[in-house]
């Protein structure tokens, strides 16, 4: 009996975290006047709010922009951060420890301090309203380097030595031998980078003003805050749903990896 009450309480606690999303899904399908109803059900379900969003803003374009930016950054972070992590963990050269210290130092700098000068840099480079502004400052991640460095340290030395004897270059060793054997590290860095980039909204708001280059979170924010949603809650929720769905799908597929990755690093989105 005590056990049953325990599970009921736990289930209620779970509902507090899940029900809002169920409610949001159905609310976005209900007509405006029914939105404040508590019940998720309705006789009048329709995709009206979604159609309104598609009509008023180029949300598909924003989705593609987000996809291009998030994928480019993720691929770049995996390639470069693993390369630097490999050099710092498996190669010997002068200044290696200095570079490692510099990376540790950069992780302690609050982002607030570089935000304004970084924007000025984008203006000077003529990069405002371009993909470069969204992608290039995120191409290497200090967190990625540290994670790969740690992970590669444990890679068996004998395999690397054997590959060297066979005349394999260090790039070959990294990308053809170590990569296929480091899937967990690649998944961890990949998921965290993709999610953080996908959900980032401050940086796009700073460097992008043209609608055609806006990322999805940025466009949804401006749509909601600006007048275009005309204070219609249903339409706002529909645009928020479209922003949430891609990450929720990825989360459902890689759920365990998501939780393990973020528990491992303590990095939040």
């Amino acid at each position, binding site marked *: 009996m005590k056990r049953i009450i325990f*599970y009921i309480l*736990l289930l209620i*606690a*779970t509902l*507090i975290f*899940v029900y809002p*999303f169920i409610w*949001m899904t159905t609310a976005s399908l209900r007509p405006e006047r029914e*939105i*404040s109803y*508590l019940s998720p059900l309705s006789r009048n379900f329709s995709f009206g709010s979604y159609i309104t969003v598609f009509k008023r803003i180029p949300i598909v374009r924003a989705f593609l922009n987000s996809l291009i930016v998030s994928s480019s950054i993720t691929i770049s972070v995996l390639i*470069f951060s693993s*390369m*630097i992590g490999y050099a710092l963990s498996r*190669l*010997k*050269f002068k200044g*290696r420890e200095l*570079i490692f210290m510099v990376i540790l130092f*950069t992780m302690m700098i*609050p982002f*607030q*301090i*570089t*935000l*304004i*000068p970084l*924007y*000025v*840099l984008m203006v000077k480079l003529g990069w405002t309203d371009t993909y470069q502004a969204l992608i290039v*400052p995120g*191409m*290497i991640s200090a967190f990625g380097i540290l994670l790969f460095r740690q992970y590669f340290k444990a890679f068996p030395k004998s395999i690397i030595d054997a590959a060297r004897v066979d005349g394999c*270059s*260090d790039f070959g060793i990294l990308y053809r031998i170590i990569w296929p054997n480091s899937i967990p590290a690649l998944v961890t860095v990949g998921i965290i980078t993709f*999610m953080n980039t996908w*959900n980032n*909204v401050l940086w796009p708001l*700073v460097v992008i003003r043209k609608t055609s280059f806006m990322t999805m*979170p940025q466009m*949804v*924010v401006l749509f*909601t*805050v600006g007048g275009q949603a005309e204070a219609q*809650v249903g339409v706002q*929720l529909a645009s*928020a*749903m479209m*922003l*949430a769905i891609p*990450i*929720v799908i990825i989360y459902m597929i890689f*759920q365990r990896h*998501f*939780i393990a990755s*973020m*528990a491992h690093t*303590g990095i*939040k*989105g």
Partner: protein
Amino acid sequence: MEKLCRYETDRVGYVMVLPYIIFFLIFVGYPLFFSFILVFHKWNIISPMKFAGLYNFNFLLHDPLFWKSLRNTLIFLIIHIPLQIIVALVIANILNQKIIARGFFRASFFLPVVISGVVITILWQQFYSFETGLFNTILSRIGMTKIPWLINTKFAMPSIAIMATWKNVGLYIVLFLAGLQAIPSSIYEAADVDGATARQKFFYITIPMLNPTMIMVLILSTLGGFSLFIEPYVMTGGGPINSTLSCVLYIYKQAFYFNHMGYAATLAFTVAFIIMIVVIIQRKLFETEVYA
């Protein structure tokens, strides 16, 4: 001979770290350096920079909105941090027992963590709406008075803090869960032999052993509070009467509404400095040695 030398210095190492050095110089080093210059100048980004000495810092000391934004952040942290730690600790302890479908429960609590803050904010804006919001609908249904969640200066920041707790607590549950599982069961067994109660075990073993996780949660929440931006930007625009003006929102407004680049950089510089001081103090005060 070439092969032997390779093991002394791997020249390819320089090639491999070169992208980082270039990246660091352009996107970290230069902005850091430039922010040191900006804080001593007045600049609207269009006309040439004007040297202003310590004017920006002087202005900042007497800027009521800067102090207001710090106070708002403090209010946020005072509500957010204890709430976060208590809720996360309780749920993590429940999930650490032998229960069925633990993975399902864990995944559910974690769901708001992965979803964009933009989505969460738009959703909660509806919940908090005074006339038609879900919370006030429930309150008036059970015969209570409506709460002015976002339209009263006393309620607005706490409302945002509660929402932020709901969004982030899943991450801290998972962190605490990992911390709990790292405590060797032999310690609890030894305590059982000595006849310790569940309560004693919790306060004299679990809490002290979780200290590293606790510090991590404390620091991450603090950084989160000082980075608060999109929630007030979407929900309140910093209002009512600047009661939800966060540090980053104020920096953003100074830079991009008023084009006060020099002053915005000064604000950012000062906030970053305060963050570092706060984190150092937190570590000094709360970090203890854990013997395991």
